[in-house]
């Protein structure tokens, strides 16, 4: 869907982006992760040509982005900014309708789509005629997301979309974000410096440093097969939590004891991560949960201790 080849950008003598290449498949969530100044935001902005590269090539859907007018390109790519970038002189409805207006949609189509998105993003319609400064940070970010999604672009670029929010709002909006069906269909490139966020939301992660990609892969790959010392050290601090988030029940299925369960009524999917399963188990009274494997239809009952010991076994195998 998106292919970046040997992309270069320097500001003066500083090489912000130094010959990086990566690919993003359709419907995939790619996270550009790294500390400030690593070149992740510069990379993102080159994809919608807010920054013009000094070398290399970017194709979206096989088309070189330099073959299009930058304005047209940008209208076909959703863009979410850290500080929302909502127009203070536009109402919420007008803000959301910016791209449709540029694309000259008729009023009814714009209105219908606005209402649809407001509902999906849990924004009350009362806010339509309100100016952004009357909204909370979380609400503003939702409006920013609605604005980016309005014209249903296949590609979405997000520049630290939750960066300006407090931890609590951040957590809940991230959860909503994950469940939003509009986003499941999209090819998304998101920039963040938050490792937890990257592991929670990313199908694949591109860890960058000083303009280079240190490693690109799934969260589990980064954790268990770090390409170099930098990757290993970068993830060390929160390793346990990250591993909980990166490992899915599916990965440790064979290590779990096969205890037949009483009922599969509340069974969870083996797609869940160990972290999520632990959360559900601790919330449950009887300290156990049923999980199903849709591939073979097997159902297993998992307890807290069983889960941890299986996970530990898996961990040992991986690190050896």
């Amino acid at each position, binding site marked *: 869907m998106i292919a970046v080849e040997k992309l270069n950008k320097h500001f003066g003598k500083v090489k912000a982006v130094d010959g990086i290449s990566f690919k993003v498949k359709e419907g995939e969530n790619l996270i550009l992760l790294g500390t400030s100044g690593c070149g992740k935001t510069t990379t993102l902005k080159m994809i*919608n040509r807010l920054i013009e590269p000094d070398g290399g090539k970017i194709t979206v859907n096989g088309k070189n982005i330099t073959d299009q007018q930058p*304005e047209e390109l*940008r*209208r076909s790519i959703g863009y979410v*900014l*850290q500080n929302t*970038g909502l*127009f203070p*002189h536009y109402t919420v409805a007008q803000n959301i309708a910016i791209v449709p207006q*540029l694309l000259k949609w008729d009023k009814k189509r714009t209105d219908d789509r606005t209402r649809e998105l407001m509902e999906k993003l849990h924004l009350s319609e009362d806010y339509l005629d309100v100016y952004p400064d009357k909204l909370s940070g979380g609400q503003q970010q939702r409006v920013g997301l609605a604005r980016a999604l309005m014209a249903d672009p296949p590609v979405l670029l997000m520049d630290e979309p939750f960066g300006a929010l407090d931890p609590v709002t951040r957590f809940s909006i991230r959860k909503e974000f994950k469940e939003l069906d509009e986003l499941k269909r999209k090819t998304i490139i998101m920039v963040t410096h938050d490792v937890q966020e990257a592991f929670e939301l990313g199908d694949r992660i591109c860890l960058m440093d000083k303009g280079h990609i240190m490693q690109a892969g799934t969260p589990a790959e980064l954790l268990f097969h770090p390409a170099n010392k930098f990757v290993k050290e970068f993830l060390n601090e929160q390793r346990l939590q990250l591993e909980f988030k990166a490992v899915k029940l599916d990965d440790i299925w064979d290590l779990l004891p096969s205890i037949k369960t009483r009922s599969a009524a509340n069974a969870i999917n083996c797609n869940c991560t160990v972290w999520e399963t632990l959360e559900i188990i601790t919330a449950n009274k009887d300290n156990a949960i049923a999980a199903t494997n849709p591939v073979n239809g097997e159902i297993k009952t998992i307890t807290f201790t069983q889960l941890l010991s299986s996970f530990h076994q898996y961990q040992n195998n991986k690190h050896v």
Partner: protein
Amino acid sequence: MNEGQQSLLDFMRQESGKLASQTLTHIGLTFISLLIAVLIGLPLGILIARKRKLSGTVLGIAGVLQTIPSIALLGFLIPILGIGAKPAIFALLIYALLPIIRNTYTGITGVDATIKEAAKGMGMSSNQILFKVELPLAMPVILAGIRTATVINVGVATLASLIAAGGLGEFIFGGISLNNTNMILAGAIPAALLAIIFDFLLSRVQNINFKKMRTGIKVLPAVLLVLACFYFIPSAYAGKLIAGFTPEFMGRRDGDVGLRDKYGLKIHTVVISDAVMYKAAYEKHLDVISGYSTDGRLKAFDLIVLDDDKKIFPPYYAVPIVSAEALKKFPQLEGTLNMLAGKIDDSTMTDLNYKVDYLHQSPEKVAMDFLVAKGLYKQSRNGNAGTVRIGSKIFGEQYILASMYTMLIKGYTDLDVDTKTGLGGTQICFSALVNNQIDLYPEYTGTGLLVMLQVKPRVLDSLVLDKDKVYNYVRQEFKTKYDIQWLKPIGFNNTYALMMRKSEAKNLKIKTISDLKRYLESNK
């Protein structure tokens, strides 16, 4: 007709017609220039916000223009744009430009970068970003600039009256020259009110919310345009010849009022500053001007004085006035000072003034050359039998006279001289003399009569403005009232006069003010 007892309201009521037309002209001038300043300043501000490299240069130039003193700017503009509305509007425009350009620039560059990036990221073109994002968000700042420019313009527009563009400055400067407080206030209060009202109205526009702002922005240019048109309401008529009179002349009985009463002269008149009037006449922007009969500029600009055949201008014969005490103390003084009596006539004095004012010779040199030519000059005796203190007002003619007296006293007596030139206006010189700070200075009979003695019109009529009667009257009055002696007249009469270009006066065969009146009436 005692003006001191007339209240401001009486004055305003009496002059309501003039007041209304001056106010309209004032509003018109302010807003014509403001409108043009917005039309130029706004795009320029946008341009430099786009091309930041230019911003230093453009803001620098606008800043430098802003610092030119307004009177000087008007002076520069006369050779290029003449007198009247054009240079006035141009000058106001220049003062209004800086706040408008600067605030447009600051407003646009001050728009949050995230918002601009969002607009760009949404796919807006740079024009769409300008009109939909940058300008609306910068509007409060831009309006603040327009507001500043308006207030500046209302103030500077008072100076427009100095170059015949009219406005409330006519009353203000007339009042200052005539020392008529009511007249000053009649111009200053409406001007201040205009500034306050426009400032308030624009502050309201500036603070309304974004929704109403859109309608506001559409209405504002229309309002500006309407206000700008006010300028054209009062100036509906134009004559064949144009007269330019100083604000002072306009308000004086022995000025415009006398011309109307005694001669019945009806001429299209504009008010203009003394500083630019002669040049404007020379450059044919004006045909008739009010001036002083011994002014060096008469010669410099090739003008002639029209004969005051009905005697409305009082005689202003120059005479040294000396405190009686000094005459007693220095017995030779009177004789020495009277050596100049009758020696300088009008054209000689004009010539001497011309040398100082236009050829930039020093007053001392001009004085010495004259004394040498008349055979009056003697080498200084470097005496020290006492010191005579000579004062003078601050203009060339007085400097020349003070120098001549200095040389005569030093050459013919054993006295030393201390000159205190540059004592400002009449009042300062006179009080210095009364308070024994100086011993003598050259004064004019008319000034003594009208300024110091402030005679009643009845007395004026009895004197019929005859030169000897006036001289004898002031001599007598000063002796009894102030113990000050008027010596013998020097000979020339530096009075008010109407002047025309020599060539035009010759062509039209105009020699006297009555001729001028006849010419105007026959060519209606």
